[in-house]
């Protein structure tokens, strides 16, 4: 049975920034349920096993609970729509095609954590995201639902749409906080986590667009319904951004835990030109490569983690036998080098050096010393930055060297092990 686009990309909810159309399509019901049983919201999110869809896969309810329990007189809920990773294009679709879905989710979150301010932090460079969000939010300002919500909260709720810098690093949780405090998006050390001390020291709940978009559906249909959408132990659906050497790239909403094989060969229409499948860059793309051995992997956070990789944002950049891995890795590392905020010297210089070395290797201008240097950098760099940017960059380089040593001209071990992390 076809299980495509059941929830978030369901044609019935692709109503654009029109609030009346959204309410007619069943919108608002989730918020009403939440208003009726506000003490159980977090419990329901926990039962549904909603994960952080921005890449971490961290159970959403933990952040919600931490924020709800933290002490503060004006808590924030931030919807993180900074999306700027290569190969990821899910949030911009949600924000422009179905913005009310996201707004309602954020309002329910605000109710759950008793926030005083909801901020939509949107990348202004992504199509109509910004424009549609502004339209959508302006319609909520005068709605009766918002008045009911404010009554339940006992204080007014401020809703803002803020343009992010559009920089890759600006999507990092603590960088979001820094950015919303009107500074440069420099990531900060954790702890303290934003749930305890975020914007202006206030507890701040930061969730990805896709995470919040699921919330109203969970409240409306119940946690059991949501769990049943997934395959096996996984729950819900996931937006997979499929790109690369496949016949039909695009955004597919599929049950969480759909296999890579099915995504690429059924929904993606198979490999372009019938070429052999070589590898997939997942998530950021800052994770360990999945190869032909991993075609059977269920694409949910836990199963992919068992293969020593990460599902990340759900981006799947498929590489065929005709494409060079080094070239792709060089491109991504170059992206990371340009995206580094520069405050940690090891990240600033490390990503630059990795990019320089990879460019040499890609151009066939490298020596053995360059390959040695690459390997050394992969050993000494991880864990040296405030945020995970340098770790992600190293992971993808290390993984590509381990999985495709022949492309680097490295000795091929007789029996490559599956573990690379």
């Amino acid at each position, binding site marked *: 049975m076809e299980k495509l686009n059941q929830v978030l990309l369901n044609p019935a909810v692709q109503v654009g920034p029109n609030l009346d159309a959204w309410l007619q399509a069943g919108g608002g019901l989730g918020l009403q349920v939440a208003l009726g049983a506000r003490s159980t919201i977090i419990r329901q999110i926990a039962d549904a096993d909603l994960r952080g869809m921005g890449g971490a896969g961290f159970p959403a309810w933990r952040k919600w609970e931490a924020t709800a329990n933290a002490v503060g007189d004006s808590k924030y809920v931030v919807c993180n729509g900074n999306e700027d990773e290569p190969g990821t294009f899910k949030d911009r679709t949600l924000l422009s095609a179905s913005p009310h879905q996201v707004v309602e989710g954020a309002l329910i979150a605000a109710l759950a954590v008793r926030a005083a301010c909801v901020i939509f932090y949107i990348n202004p460079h992504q199509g109509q995201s910004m424009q549609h969000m502004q339209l959508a939010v302006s319609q909520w300002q005068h709605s009766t639902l918002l008045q009911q919500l404010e009554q339940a909260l006992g204080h007014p709720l401020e809703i803002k749409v803020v343009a992010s810098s559009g920089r890759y690093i600006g999507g990092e949780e603590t960088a979001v906080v820094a950015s919303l405090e009107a500074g440069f998006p420099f990531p900060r050390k954790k702890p303290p986590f934003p749930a305890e001390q975020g914007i202006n020291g206030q507890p701040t709940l930061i969730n990805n667009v896709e995470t919040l978009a699921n919330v109203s559906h969970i409240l409306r249909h119940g946690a059991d319904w949501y769990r049943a959408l997934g395959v096996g132990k996984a729950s819900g659906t996931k937006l997979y951004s499929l790109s*690369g*050497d496949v*016949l*039909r*790239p695009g955004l597919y909403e599929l049950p969480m835990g759909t296999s890579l094989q099915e995504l690429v060969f059924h929904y993606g*229409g198979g490999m*372009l*030109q019938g*070429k052999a499948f070589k590898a997939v860059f997942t998530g950021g793309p800052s994770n360990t490569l999945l190869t032909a051995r991993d075609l059977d992997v269920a694409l949910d956070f836990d199963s992919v983690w068992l293969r020593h990789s990460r599902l990340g944002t759900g981006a799947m950049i498929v590489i065929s*036998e*005709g*494409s*060079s891995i*080094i*070239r792709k890795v060089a*491109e991504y590392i170059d992206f990371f080098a340009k995206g580094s905020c520069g405050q940690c010297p090891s990240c600033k210089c490390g990503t630059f050096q990795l990019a320089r070395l990879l460019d040499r290797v*890609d*151009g*066939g*201008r490298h020596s053995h010393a360059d390959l040695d240097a690459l390997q050394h950098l992969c050993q000494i760099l991880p864990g040296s930055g405030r945020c995970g940017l340098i770790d992600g960059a190293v992971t993808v380089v290390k993984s590509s060297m381990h999985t495709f040593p*022949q*492309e680097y*001209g490295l000795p*091929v071990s007789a029996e490559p092990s599956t573990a690379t992390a």
Partner: protein
Amino acid sequence: MNSAIPYAQALTNLTAHAQPPLRPAELSRSALLAQYHPDSDANASTLLQIGPSRGQACHPQLAALLQSNALIDGFDLAGAEQRSTDVLVIGGGGAGAAAALTAARSGAQVMLASKLRLGDSNTVMAEGGIQAALAASDSPQQHFDDAMRGGHQCANPQLLAQMASDAPGVIRWLIELGMHFDLEDPLSDGGKLRYKQAGGCSQRRILCYRDYTGLEMMRVLRETVELDPAISLLNRCPVVELLSHEDGSCAGAVLYDLEYQRFMVVSARQTILATGGCGRLHLQGFPTSNHYGATADGLVLAYRLGAGLRDMDAFQYHPTGVAWPQRLRGGLISEAARSGGALLVNGLGERFIEELAPRDVVSAAILRECAAGRGIERNGQLGVFLDTRALGPELAQRLPALQHLADKCGIDPSREPMLIYPTLHYQNGGVVIDGNGQTEVPGLLCAGEITGGIHGRNRLMGNALLDILAFGRRAGRQAARLAQAARHKSSLPPLRGGIEHVYRWQRQLALAGLDASVQAPLLYPGQARLALHRPTGTRAQEK
């Protein structure tokens, strides 16, 4: 073959009249074109299915190439030599040389790549001359009017007006570079330029140097390019694919170095395609006057990258290609012969068309004579006579290339007629450009025969040499300007592009159900078939 009049009989018919009579026209010109011009053939047009100009008419042989697969895959670029430049010019003919020179003189670093050598092109084969409204009685407006009418009112008026207005400046530039033109009185200093009549023109407007004007022009262009320190020249480096940035703009090109047998990735801030036309595709089996490099390479690559095309079903068949002997079939006899008084005569000894009517009309008329059994057959070759006897003994001096060709045919043109038949000569359509040669793809400019819209659906004699220089110079200037603006923003070398557009293209091919086993550009069809050498080792190990 249709019935035809044997050569000996035709010769007798020809000599029966001192002055062959002109048969009154029984068909209007438009009816003649609709019935007999090769473009009107039912098999000469199909619709493009994918790409920016889908739905437009195109010759089927060309459509097969335009909707074809790339020669390379991403893996081929692994370990490839990397170079970068401000402006990359592809094509070593007149348009490429003019663009490179102008870009270099506007301050850009230029790389000029040719799949043959600089100057191996149709430019050197242009015999007749170059049009420019220089005479006192002439004006760019009249030049424009003539060309517009000749092109059946299909030309882009803006482009045509620019070409006609640029013409006097182009001639001045050529003279400054050192090119010779025929003068009225060659012995006096500062003599007046000599003007010749061209088919379809209201004025004597053709400037020439003997009947190898293009060769003389290329001589000075080549010398100047080779001596310019800002231009690095890459001979025998065919372009196999263009490079693109994520936003779809052009990022340079992938070349293949024949000498070292390896790929070269050239990142350029601006790329100018000046790769010429497609005569060597021998559309509908016609012979061609084009050189061996005219294989539509640039057209295919520009279309794949997203540049729109126009008039891809309009080609020019030059009326006077050699029909006999067979080994020289298709070779061009300049329109200068007819301009100087040579006559077209059928097997019955009659003239059947005004010799200086537009080329497409004359070609259609010749094809009609052949179809109606009034053609002439000699050793299995069909054609009509070009009666050059009226040119007299001055012929050898005035038209040395014609004399040379006649010598190769074993004919004395001052006493015998030559057998001729239309030959595929020029691609009227091509890539859509604006007044500066800019295509619909940012970062990609085009100049020369590859472009469309300047001449409409038919070109007049002498406007090709003008077109390549006028728009070659415009494209060069514009590319240098844009490259400098980009360099002003960032002094780093231009960003390296990829071949993501090829994957997008392959997807379209697959979804439209087109044959992905056809690969283009052809580069060197039928001769020394190029085997692209892949980086050894890695790929072999994988398979």
